[in-house]
């Protein structure tokens, strides 16, 4: 090999050698006997060792989250407090997750038999012989009605899931987020007023759309969903919203069937993509929740079944988060899994999510260790300040002091500035201008990510088909039903007298919970 910087066309040794994709030799680094079949982050594995490695990684990610309480000094058997729900999208990760879950926790286990008694060793109630989860369900959310022309793949998915015995298939549709039948079925409390928001206003003013004169009253869930989707300002917002709606539908379903765990098939690659994508859209405060979270059912939902966890909490676990997309693909190929695939959403090529995916997937081919570095670094991040409550829309923590921060932001939409006047303008005499009551706003109850999703504007123009302040956009039912929303819609009428006509003017203002309590305090029993 030439060590000089010569001309590759004349000197055969001058051309730089390609950087090897694997360290050392082609022998498996684990068993050191067989020739390797796959390279994972520069390490070579044979087929058998690869399968063992994936199974070990899978269990290592999932087992510590199974028991309701962490194990004490003495290691106990695994036994979940409630049932299991697997979120299935038809994609590669979901398919591998379903297969691994079934092989590890649901397929028939041959309990070792005691030769003297002829019965299972340790007795039939020995923890080794019990299933970790008594019941398992697989839930699929069909998104086709959000995008006209998209194919309905529910039956394809059903055929895949039915190959796994003992798992119940629960099909949902994304428009269920606007369906009262679905809301009732998951224990949602009665909603008297269906609320809509004005997307033309940054304050996202709320108004009721449940009256016969309003067009929104008679719309079906599909129509409400499509109006909502077509009102969103950017392609990024559409894709982000579909993901959020899907996640919340899964969570409510898990709660309704008494599940203690919701498993999602997010691989290491998908996790890195969603972390970067979420941070790019203002979701940095909940970067930890992208990896794992514990969801508390809101008070607007009656808990239908217990799941062994305090407050009915549901653990959202992503057991494949240490397993890359390449490893998932090899597992699917070597075990003959049929991957239905996920439908690509139309028009999403220039969205932040898709651009991030193209970047990360390209990065994984050339620098495979970088992708795991993204996930590892993000798992070390923690928000600087505390939370100000739960976002009504995404049901994740909202950052503290968001309203104050937003009020100090210099770059704003001029339309949204209602009280500010440039200093060179004279003060306007407002004493003879009748004040109008201020409608309630949803903005204080949203996290930064969700508010940006609903109000951001693209430099390329908006994707919103028709948005009008007179035709409010419907909201998912969990937003409408939450106790905070009912606080928002609660009003107090204060009578004042118009100084000119002497007539009474009713002015509405928002009351918080403490004020309402003070009003009725004398009527409350101790």
């Amino acid at each position: 090999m030439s060590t000089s910087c010569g001309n590759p066309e004349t000197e055969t040794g001058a051309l730089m050698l390609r950087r090897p994709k694997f360290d050392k030799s082609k022998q498996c680094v684990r068993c050191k006997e067989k020739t390797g079949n796959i390279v994972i982050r520069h390490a070579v594995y044979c087929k058998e060792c690869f399968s063992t490695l994936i199974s070990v990684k899978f269990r290592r990610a999932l087992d510590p989250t199974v028991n309701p309480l962490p194990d004490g000094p003495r290691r106990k058997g695994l036994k979940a407090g409630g049932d299991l729900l697997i979120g299935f999208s038809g994609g590669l990760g979901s398919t591998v997750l379903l297969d691994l879950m079934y092989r590890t926790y649901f397929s028939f286990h041959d309990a070792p038999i005691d030769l003297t008694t002829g019965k299972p060793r340790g007795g039939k109630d020995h923890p080794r012989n019990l299933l970790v989860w008594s019941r398992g369900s697989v839930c699929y959310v069909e998104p086709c009605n959000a995008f006209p022309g998209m194919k309905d793949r529910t039956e394809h998915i059903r055929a895949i899931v039915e190959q796994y015995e003992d798992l119940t298939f629960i099909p949902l549709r994304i428009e269920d987020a606007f369906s009262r039948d679905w809301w009732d079925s998951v224990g949602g409390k009665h909603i008297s007023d269906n609320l809509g928001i004005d997307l033309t206003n940054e304050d996202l003013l709320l108004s009721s759309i449940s009256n016969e004169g309003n067009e929104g009253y008679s719309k079906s869930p599909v129509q409400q969903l499509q109006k909502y989707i077509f009102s969103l300002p950017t392609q990024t917002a559409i894709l982000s919203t579909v993901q959020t709606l899907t996640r919340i539908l899964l969570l409510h379903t898990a709660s309704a069937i008494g599940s203690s765990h919701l498993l999602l098939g997010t691989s290491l690659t998908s996790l890195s993509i969603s972390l970067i994508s979420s941070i790019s859209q203002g979701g940095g405060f909940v970067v930890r929740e992208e990896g794992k979270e514990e969801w508390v059912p809101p008070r607007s939902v009656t808990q239908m079944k217990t799941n062994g966890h305090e407050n009915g909490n549901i653990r959202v676990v992503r057991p494949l988060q240490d397993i890359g997309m390449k490893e998932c693909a090899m597992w699917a190929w070597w075990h003959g899994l049929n991957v239905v695939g996920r439908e690509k959403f139309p028009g999403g090529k220039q969205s932040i999510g898709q651009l991030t995916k193209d970047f990360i997937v390209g990065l994984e081919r050339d620098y495979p260790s970088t992708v795991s570095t993204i996930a590892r670094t993000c798992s070390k991040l923690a928000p600087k300040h505390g939370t100000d409550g739960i976002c009504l829309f995404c049901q994740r923590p909202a950052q503290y002091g968001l309203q104050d921060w937003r009020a100090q932001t210099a770059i704003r939409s001029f339309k949204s500035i209602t009280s500010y006047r440039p200093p060179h303008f004279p003060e306007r005499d407002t004493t003879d201008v009748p004040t109008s009551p201020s409608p309630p706003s949803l903005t204080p109850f949203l996290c930064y990510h969700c508010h940006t999703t609903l109000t951001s504007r693209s430099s390329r123009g908006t994707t919103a088909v028709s948005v009008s302040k007179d035709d409010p956009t419907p909201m998912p039912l969990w937003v409408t039903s939450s106790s905070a929303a009912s606080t928002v819609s609660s009003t107090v009428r204060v009578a004042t007298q118009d100084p000119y006509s002497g007539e009474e003017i009713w002015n509405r203002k928002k009351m918080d919970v403490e004020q309402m309590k003070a009003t009725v305090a004398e009527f409350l029993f101790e």
Partner: protein
Amino acid sequence: MTTISVKVEFSGGLELLFSNQRAHTVELPAINAVTSKEPNLQYLIEFLRDNLLKERVELFVENGTVRPGILVLVNDTDWELEGEGE
């Protein structure tokens, strides 16, 4: 002219670009007429692009090689262990 028979299988949605057919058998020339060398994987990729691919070339080939995210196996072994395109 002698040929090499190669069985090519597609999976994970890639078959949709190749007439929705999972398995294909292609006959490659034993000696590449242009380079006078035996065909390699790079040649096979170009052959598939020019002769079997029915739509959306950009979903299969990018910058002269398979698009990122597409895994290539040669006799059940990762092509990174076999020298990739060469």
